[in-house]
């Protein structure tokens, strides 16, 4: 037999089968869509025809009965119901398995599909004797079609063999419509092209670097053209590897349908942005994590219909997938309107499993608690189901996404649903990066982390950096920007400024935090080809990889998040996310936290996490006015509501001092809203290991801790604002 013909048939059939999955699920929602039935009929008919022609008798006989049933549906002599859809979907699975077997072994396998065939035959009302014998225990087909979109739970009881959905690596095929203007290209070839382009980009960079030392007009013209062509070629080749995310999503309606039936739930899936394109290596990498997240949403997220109705929600749950480009990254959101995550339940579970010490869990914020589901070995399912709940859940999703340089964020409102937001880079192979130097070594900083560059002249440099208790900060347009010296972070030693005495600050963002990285010098931005580091260096979180620079020398790519963690810029919950549970949760480790110390009322010493402080202000007392029930001041052309901390926490009033003395205000900003916390005095900013104890419960106070040898109350910023007026806190 001609292998090429078989191969072509296989590729075409796989494509058709994917389409069938979608058609069936659509059809179930609208059983009268004749056009879709006709399409399904044609596909099955084609497969039957070719399998007969190629001599795959098993495949032929199965598709033959399916075709008969479909022809009745097409003619309208039989109406589609959930039973029929299930049987037909099983047929599709069986066909898929046979195709896989044909691909692997050249035969359609020694399968026994007689039960399925009999079932199909019986559904069309014929039911031959052989089948009836085998199917004796099976209940009769419902005479009245079931209401279409509600898949009855009874499917589960069907005795037909559930074909395993394990596919023996069918060829990956893009599901785009094949027209005369497109050709099929082996992805291996595309990968090789991409590698070559990567090398070409490096060579181009070298030529450009060389060009700066040569004074030859012709050479410059040529290298300029080479530069443009390379860029265009790179973009072109990159585009050939782009695939719409819909290729991954196209499998979801079927997954969702099957899972919903198994779990006895009703789920509607909606998608937006299916045509958002991603590099195929990334598509490959996110396929499993996304599928897992979708399964999780249905298994754990969306409640059973009766529970939903009792909670005042529609019986049918909604799973919403959204993808869009933003800032050179692709955002993917998977949200459901299910029960959400119960932070208390998560906490208890995490403590019960020994993932977090109980005292630590007690003082975690809701958001931190929710993120505990990312810990390895965590599973909230009440019982282990075959859908999920084996404790290899969200941590795998997270690791897989982070492996490709993405981030995962889980937000949940208990009772209202859960939303998983994944941010991933467009491509992994070539990224724009800023090249900096420190101690005469070059480092590349991925552009995605870069916010801005600040350079301070030597004369001003000395005064620009202020120190808060040994922590260097820089006032960037009035906001305090913590500084990290790259040389120190990498333990290179030496002075903290550039050789000429100027100060180069690279303002970076890591995990929603902003910090300034002080380097010796800033060079160009360049397209760099990311190469992984060897196993022996994988443990270094400060580096994301390495690249080869224009002059052929190797430069390390900084992992901005890793650097931020080394310098304690990002909080410990982020550490845990990144480094896993074992290191962070070891007994005795505490977080070093930057705290703002204030005096409240006459004598109460309080601490506010510096992360919650946007600005410190001294405002004239005369400026305080009333708006509704609130005290406000005009601040930056807005009204700043004021909360008197002393009143909320019940501190004894301060001795009434000078009425002209300015108000000391700690400005807290969240989601674009500012609230001013009025305190008596700003005392200091310290960085200390915070160990919170809760000797008592008091409004507005998280607990007490010892800072610099003195007992200090930790202010519950949100709580205080909430207590004053819930509408102020941006929940």
């Amino acid at each position, binding site marked *: 037999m001609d292998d090429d013909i078989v191969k072509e048939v296989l590729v075409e059939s796989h494509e058709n089968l994917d389409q069938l999955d979608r058609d069936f699920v659509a059809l179930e929602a609208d059983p009268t869509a004749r056009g879709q039935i006709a399409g399904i009929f044609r596909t099955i008919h084609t497969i039957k025809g070719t399998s007969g022609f190629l001599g795959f008798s098993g495949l032929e006989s199965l598709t033959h009965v399916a075709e008969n049933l479909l022809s009745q549906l097409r003619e309208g002599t039989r109406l589609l119901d959930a039973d029929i859809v299930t049987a037909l979907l099983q047929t599709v699975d069986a066909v898929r398995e046979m195709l896989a077997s044909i691909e692997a072994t050249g035969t359609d396998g020694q399968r026994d599909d007689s039960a399925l065939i009999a079932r199909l035959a019986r559904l069309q009302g014929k039911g031959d004797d052989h089948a009836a014998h085998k199917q004796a225990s099976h209940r009769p087909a419902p005479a009245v079609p079931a209401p279409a979109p509600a898949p009855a739970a009874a499917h589960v009881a069907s005795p037909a063999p559930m074909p395993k959905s394990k596919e023996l690596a069918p060829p990956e095929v893009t599901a785009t419509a094949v027209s005369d203007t497109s050709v099929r290209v082996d992805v291996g070839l595309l990968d090789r092209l991409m590698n070559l382009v990567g*090398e070409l980009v*490096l060579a181009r960079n070298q030529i450009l670097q060389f060009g700066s030392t040569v004074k030859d007009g012709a050479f410059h013209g040529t290298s300029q053209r080479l530069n443009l062509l390379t860029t265009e070629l790179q973009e072109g080749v990159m585009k050939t590897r782009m695939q719409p995310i819909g290729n991954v999503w196209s499998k979801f309606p079927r997954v969702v349908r099957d899972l919903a039936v198994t779990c006895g739930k009703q789920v509607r899936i909606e998608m937006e942005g299916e045509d958002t394109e991603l590099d195929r290596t990334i598509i490959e990498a996110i396929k499993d994590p996304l599928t897992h997240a979708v399964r999780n949403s249905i298994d754990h997220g969306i409640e059973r219909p009766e529970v939903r109705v009792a909670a005042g929600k529609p019986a049918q749950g909604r799973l919403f997938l959204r993808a869009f480009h933003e800032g050179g990254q692709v955002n993917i959101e998977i949200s459901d309107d299910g029960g959400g995550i119960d932070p208390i339940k998560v906490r208890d579970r995490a403590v019960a499993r020994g993932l977090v010490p109980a005292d630590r869990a007690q003082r975690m914020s809701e958001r931190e608690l929710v993120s505990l589901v990312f810990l390895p070995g965590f599973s909230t399912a009440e019982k282990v189901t075959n859908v999920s709940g084996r404790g290899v859940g969200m941590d795998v999703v997270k690791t897989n996404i982070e492996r490709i340089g993405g981030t995962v964020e889980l937000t949940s409102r208990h009772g209202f649903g859960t939303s998983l937001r994944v941010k991933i880079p467009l491509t992994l192979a070539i990224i724009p990066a800023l090249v900096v130097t420190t101690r005469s*070594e070059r480092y590349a900083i991925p552009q995605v982390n870069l916010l801005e560059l600040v350079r301070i002249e030597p004369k001003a440099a000395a005064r620009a950096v202020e120190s808060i208790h040994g922590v260097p900060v820089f006032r960037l347009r009035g906001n305090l920007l913590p500084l990290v010296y790259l040389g120190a972070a*990498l*333990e*290179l030693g030496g002075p903290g400024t550039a050789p000429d005495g100027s100060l180069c600050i690279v303002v970076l963002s890591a995990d929603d935090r902003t910090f300034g990285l002080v380097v010796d010098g800033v060079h160009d931005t360049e397209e760099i080809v990311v*190469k992984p*580091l*060897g*196993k*022996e*260096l*994988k*443990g*270094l979180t*400060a*580096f994301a990889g*390495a*690249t*080869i620079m224009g002059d*052929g*020398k*190797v*430069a*390390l790519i900084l992992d901005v998040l890793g650097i931020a963690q080394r310098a304690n810029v990002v909080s410990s919950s982020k550490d845990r996310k990144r480094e896993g549970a074992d290191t962070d949760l070891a007994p005795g480790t505490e977080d070093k936290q930057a705290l703002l110390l204030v005096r409240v009322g006459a004598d109460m010493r309080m601490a506010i996490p510096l992360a919650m402080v946007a600005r410190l202000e001294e405002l004239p007392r005369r400026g305080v006015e009333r708006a509704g029930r609130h005290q406000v001041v005009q601040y930056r052309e807005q009204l700043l509501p004021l909360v008197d901390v002393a009143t909320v926490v019940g501190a004894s009033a301060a001795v009434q001092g000078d009425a002209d003395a300015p108000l000391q205000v700690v400005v807290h900003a969240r989601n674009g809203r500012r609230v001013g916390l009025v305190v008596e005095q700003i005392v200091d900013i310290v960085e200390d290991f915070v160990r919170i104890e809760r000797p008592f419960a008091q409004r507005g106070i998280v607990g007490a801790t010892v800072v610099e040898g003195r007992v200090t109350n930790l202010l519950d910023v949100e709580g205080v604002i909430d207590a004053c007026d819930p509408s102020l806190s941006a929940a």
Partner: protein
Amino acid sequence: MATRQLCTFQLAGASFGVDVTHVQEVIREQEMTRVPLAPPMIYGLINLRGQIVSAIDMRTRLGLPPRTSETPPMNVVVRTDEGAMSLLVDQIGDVIEVGDEAFERPPETLDVATKDLVQGVYKLEGHLLLLLDTARVVPTTERAS
């Protein structure tokens, strides 16, 4: 009599060898990019025709005193299951053929870091040659956890 071919090199006056089939190439000193925060035995990264390869300072790895001579080290690039790796050695020797009869397991008194790496000793005329296991140059504890 079974024999094997070894690529030999010198470190601090002593002779070492690795199985010649593991050696990809031997190259002169390369421009090196140092890796801050890395374990001391990682001397730096080199660009091997577009591939980035870690260079291991074998003196540090074997607990020998640091290199003092002016002669630049040589790179013995070996293939491991986890990709290529360059071993920095003082001086490169010949490829020699050794017989099993001259082989002996390393003495128990060898210090732990070295014993892990040394597969055995070949008793050659006039000197001993230590056979190194290229797969164990990076101790498991140094790898990513």
